[in-house]
Structures are given as structure tokens and as C-alpha cells.
């Protein structure tokens, strides 16, 4: 046996050695020669930090596709300042890793700006880091109010809406239209969930509602049955969840399967996590963008996205798409890639041209807290018989603030914000 196996061993080893050497050689070649080729063209590099692993992993794929599509569109039209754009995507994974990756993108890849982020915990950590490094960052996916309030930074902008905007949109609608006042909260136990819970509680108290129960669930929870049993026993008239990522899918699925009939709503929804729930999906949610949004620019972009990637874009694809365009517009406006000049260009900047945020109304970055003022959409699950495909799950019930009203109505009021931007230096 041993002798018969021996040559095979050797061959395998030789094969592995050869393959290993080939890989190493290829990698080495890339490192040695690729930058030289690139240097000749001098592309403008944009770094993207987005989750590819963990309970938020699924939306990272959408975010990368959205940003890639934006870069491709811009490059077709000549890039920015006559230079090509290049996107480098890294996994944000967790706050510690995200900061390391941000340093790598800034120091090794020499990106002119960062964009992306989904986890609020990672976004807060990377925000502190880019402020130190004085590099522009656009937050395209993290919702905690803190990012625009207590821990806002001069170099950090947000195209993503904040919790106050999301909760304001859905909460007021629930109280006024659905007349629900006895709420039960289920919250993800990390920065985002806690912040969302705080905002939702404030809204409920301001409307003289009652909190009949509240639970914190660790991120990555797969079995929600005990939480659901507790809810059932507490007899609320609304379950309001402050969950994120794959937890949303699991919770909504198990909620339907448990035979519960109490109304359910969420402080936020990512369509990428609502789609896998399938036919049992129910509830009402606030969403920043939905691929069936009936504006000409949205329709056209959703169609381009489907053509490029073979599936409709979710809200995270939208967020990163807008963020990349905002960076490109800042570069054109500042006629520079200097981060300080880009920051100045974006303060008070209204997204222009074909890229107006796809919402058919002007969207502007507030100068004093760097939040892009955006309308939110209250969506409900469509009647199953009206789905034209498995992606067609929501119908838009309302745009908040309504057309004609100021977008300021939904955002954090200046008097309540704790944002103190650092001087630009």
C-alpha cells in the first residue's frame, strides 16, 4: 500500500508546489507590473467598505454592484476631471477590521475618498479614523443618528437616511393611519438597534402611546420563537422591530409561521432581507428607495441594473450608487481630488444633472451636519395575487415628506442635533 501510494503523494506535492509557485508568480507579477500600468493612466481611486460576511453580508453584494455600476457609467462619460475612476471594495466585517481596511485603502491604495459602510458600529469607528486621516467618507448605509449628531465629523457625509428619518416616516403613519398605540419593541443588541429604539420610544411617548414590552436580541439570532411567545402574551396592538440584516428575514418568517395576527412594522427594512421571506411576508416599513419607484430616473436606473446584474437593485445598491456619484460631482465641482476641497464642495451641494438622487426632487447635503436630505417611502406588502414576480413584494403607500413639503421636516432638527463639525484644516 505504502509504496503504491508513495508516487501519488509525490505527484500531488509536485502539483501543489507547481500550482503554488504559479499563483505566487501571478500575484507577484500583478504587484510588480500592474501599478505601473495603472500609474500611466492615473485613475482616481474610490475605496468602498461594505460587509461581505456576517449577518449583514447579503447587502454588501448589492452595494458593490451599485457602486460598480456608477463607476462604469461615469467612466463611459470620461470619468472625472478627464481621469478614469476605479473602485476598490473591501469587507467591513466588524468595527476593528473596518478601521484596518480603511487604513489600507487610504495608505496603500491612496484612495481619494471612501464610501459604503452598513453597520453603524463600523461606520462610527471608520468615521473617527477618516477624520484623523482627513479623507472624505460618504456613509451610504449606516443609520444611527449619532453618525450625524453627537459623533458627526467634518470629513463624513451621509447619503443614507438616519433613524430619525426612518422612524419619523413609519411611526407617524402608524399612529395616524393605523391608530396603534400599544407597542412592543424587539431590538438588535448593537449601536444601530439601540439608537433606533431610542428614536422610536421618543416618538411613541410624544404621541402618548404605551410601551407594553421591549426585548433586546443579539445579532445573528436564528430562533425568535421565545420572543414571539413573549409578544403574544403581552397583547400589544403593534410589534415594532428594530432589527437588521439576516435577523429581519428570520424574525418575519418565524412571526408569520407562529400564527401571530398582531400588526407588525419595522424601524427600517432592507429589501434584500425582505425578499427571502417570501410569501409569508407581512407588515409596513420605511424604505429609502424601492426599485418600483415611479420616477423616470429610477425606472431607467433599475432597468440598467437588471441588465448589468440580472436582478433588481435593492436600497443598498441605490445608496452606494448615489454615494459614488456624489463623490464624482464633488471632484468635478472642486476641480481637485484634495479631500478638504471635496468637503467644501459637498457642503450645501445639491445633487445635479441626470444624477439627482433618482427621486425627482432636489436632494441637498445639509452644510451643518452633512446629511443628504431625502424623502422616505412608507411601503406595505402587496397583496400576493398582484406580485408580478418574486421581487415585486411592496407597494408604496406614501412619500414622506409629501411633495411640496420641506425635506427638513423629516430630518433631525438643528435645535435637537448635537453635531459640532470640526474646523477644516
Amino acid at each position, binding site marked *: 500500500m505504502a509504496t503504491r501510494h508513495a508516487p501519488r503523494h509525490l505527484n500531488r506535492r509536485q502539483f501543489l508546489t507547481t500550482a503554488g509557485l504559479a499563483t505566487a508568480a501571478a500575484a507577484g507579477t500583478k504587484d510588480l507590473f500592474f501599478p505601473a500600468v495603472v500609474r500611466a493612466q492615473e485613475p482616481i481611486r474610490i475605496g468602498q467598505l461594505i460587509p461581505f460576511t456576517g449577518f449583514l453580508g*447579503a447587502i454588501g453584494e448589492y452595494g458593490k454592484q451599485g457602486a460598480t455600476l456608477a463607476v462604469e457609467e461615469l467612466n463611459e462619460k470620461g470619468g472625472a476631471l478627464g481621469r478614469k475612476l476605479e473602485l476598490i471594495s473591501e469587507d467591513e466585517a466588524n468595527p476593528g477590521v473596518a478601521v484596518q481596511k480603511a487604513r489600507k485603502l487610504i495608505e496603500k491604495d491612496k484612495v481619494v475618498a471612501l464610501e459604503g459602510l452598513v453597520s453603524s458600529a463600523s461606520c462610527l469607528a471608520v468615521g473617527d479614523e477618516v477624520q484623523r486621516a482627513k479623507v472624505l467618507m460618504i456613509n451610504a448605509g449606516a443609520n444611527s443618528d449619532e453618525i450625524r449628531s453627537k459623533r458627526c465629523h467634518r470629513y463624513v457625509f451621509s447619503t443614507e437616511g438616519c433613524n430619525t428619518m426612518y422612524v419619523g416616516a413609519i411611526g407617524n403613519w402608524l399612529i395616524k393611519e393605523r391608530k396603534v398605540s400599544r407597542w412592543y419593541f424587539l431590538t438588535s443588541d448593537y449601536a444601530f438597534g439601540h439608537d433606533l429604539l431610542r428614536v422610536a420610544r421618543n416618538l411613541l411617548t410624544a404621541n402618548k402611546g404605551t410601551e407594553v414590552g421591549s426585548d433586546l436580541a443579539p445579532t445573528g439570532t436564528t430562533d425568535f*420563537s421565545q420572543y414571539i411567545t413573549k409578544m403574544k402574551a403581552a397583547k400589544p396592538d403593534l410589534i415594532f422591530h428594530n432589527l437588521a440584516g439576516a435577523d429581519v428575514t428570520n424574525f418575519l418568517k418565524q412571526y408569520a409561521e407562529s400564527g401571530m395576527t398582531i400588526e407588525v412594522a419595522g424601524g427600517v427594512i432592507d429589501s434584500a432581507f425582505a425578499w*427571502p421571506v417570501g410569501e*409569508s411576508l407581512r407588515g409596513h416599513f420605511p424604505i429609502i428607495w424601492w426599485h418600483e419607484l415611479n420616477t423616470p430616473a429610477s425606472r431607467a436606473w433599475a432597468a440598467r441594473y437588471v441588465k448589468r446584474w440580472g436582478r433588481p437593485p435593492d436600497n443598498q445598491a441605490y445608496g452606494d450608487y448615489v454615494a459614488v456619484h456624489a463623490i464624482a460631482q464633488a471632484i468635478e465641482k472642486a476641480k481637485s481630488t484634495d479631500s478638504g476641497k471635496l468637503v467644501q464642495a459637498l457642503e450645501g451641494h445639491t445633487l445635479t444633472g441626470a444624477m439627482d438622487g433618482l427621486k425627482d426632487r432636489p436632494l441637498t447635503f445639509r452644510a451643518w451636519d452633512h446629511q443628504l436630505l431625502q424623502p422616505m417611502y412608507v411601503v406595505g406588502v402587496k397583496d400576493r395575487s398582484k406580485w408580478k414576480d418574486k421581487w415585486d413584494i411592496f407597494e408604496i403607500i406614501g412619500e414622506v415628506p409629501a411633495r411640496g413639503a420641506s425635506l427638513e421636516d423629516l430630518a433631525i432638527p438643528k435645535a435637537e442635533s448635537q453635531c459640532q463639525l470640526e474646523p477644516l484644516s
Partner: protein
Amino acid sequence: MTPAVFAEFLLNGLVLGALYVLMALGVSIIFGMVGVINFAHGALFTLGAYAAYQLQGALGFSGALVAAPVLVGVLGMLIEATLLRRLYLQDPLQGLLLTFGLAMVLEQGIRLIWGLSPKQFDVPAGLAGAVQLGALTYSKYRSFILVSVVLLIAGLALFLQKTPVGMIVRAGSRDPMMVRLLGISLTPVLTLVFGLGTAFAAIAGVLSAPLAGVQPAMGVNVGTAAFVVVTIGGLGSLPGAIISGLLVGQVVSLSIYFQPRVAEASMYVLMAVILLLRPRGLMGERWEKFD
């Protein structure tokens, strides 16, 4: 807490525990017989769910529930026959490292094949909704999980107690040298047991899929829980794995009722307490080969 709510709590804990038991049985028979701590168990759980996702279109849920574990079991047997077998005479750490690496390869492979987005996996039509048992409303599908796990445990017990191969497995776990001296080759038995253990992980994966969603990281928490359960139950003891799985299910469940924030830590606290009081675990016996 009304009696109906309390009953529902116990049932939820039982279902959670039942899935832990399936995972722990797989880890336990592999460890008892093959002597390897299978770190890839969580990844095989995930693979089972994805295989069922792929197959259920053609075979339906019941077909996938049988075919997916068989496929994963065959993969397990191939892994044993081609990779693991080479390491039996080496330092046990080698086998552990192999399964550790395998777990990463499998998880990344799943990401490459099926992508990062969670897959839609509906509760099978006949099992959707809830049943009314007196004052208690309980999910049909969760009840189905309980019944399936009871049948599987009974099947495994019959196999080990009543069949000739089962007897070789039990004897081989205890004293492989003596079995070999009696002229019985353990080589095919080792392959079979590794396949059986991985098939159990896959069954747990398929059963979880309609509830927990199918996504690449779905096996991570369950995989860790399986090791905790086996440690509490006693290494190599199958009754220990069953009792400990159900116990851990109830402890995690009840801690969610009283203090959800410590729910995840509760099983580790339980493990620490048990190990302090009874280092061999609840049902751990003195086995010459572990000493």
C-alpha cells in the same frame, strides 16, 4: 405567565434543543469512533440546507429532506476516505486542523456557488400555519421538527443496538484494538460513521432552513452550540448528547424569557458549572482511550 404561554415556552425550548441534539449526536459519534473533533460540522449543516434548497424544486421538501443528507453524507464519506484517513496515525491535532480548514473551504465554496444573499426557503405547504391544541396554538412545522428528531433518535438507537454494523461501531468506539484483533476491519466502519455524522448535521440544516433562512453563515452559531452540548453531555456519550441538548435548549429558551441579553452566554455558563462539578460531563464515562 399563563399555563398556555408556559407550555409554549417549553415547546420552543424543546424544538431548539432537538436541533442541538441532532448536531451533537453527529459530533459525538464522529468523535467517539473516529476520534476527530469535527470543526466542519457547522459548515456541513449549512451545506445540507443549501443542498435542500437546490433539490426541493425537483424533489419537493420531503424528497430534499432525504436526498440532501444522503448527498452530504456521501461527501462526508469521501472526505474521510481521501483526507482524514491519512491523518489517523499522526498527532490528533492534524485531524482537527484539517476539519478546521475544511470548514472555511466549505463556507467560502458555498459563497462562491450560491452568492451572499439569503435564499428563500418556504415552510412546506402542508406544514405551514399553526395547530390548535386546547388553549395552545403551536406551529405545525415546529411540531414536525420534534416528531422527526424523535424518529431519528429512535432509528439511530435501533441501528446501534440491533444491527451487526451498529455493534461493531459501539465496540470499535470503546476498544478499536480488540475489534481489529477479532479480525474485523474498521476501515469501512470509520468511513460509514463519518458519513452518518455529517448526514445528521445536514438533516439539522434542512430542518432549520424553513425557519432560520438559508445563508452562508447560518451554521456558525449552531456549530458552536453543538460542541458545548457534547462537552456538557460527556464526550462520546450519545444519551449524554441527547439529555444535554434538551437541557441547553431549555436553558437558552428560559433565559430569553427572563433576561434575553444573557441568552447566548447562558449555555457557556451552564457548561462552566457542569465542568466544575463533573469534569467528565453529565454522562461521560471513563474511557481508556481518552485518558
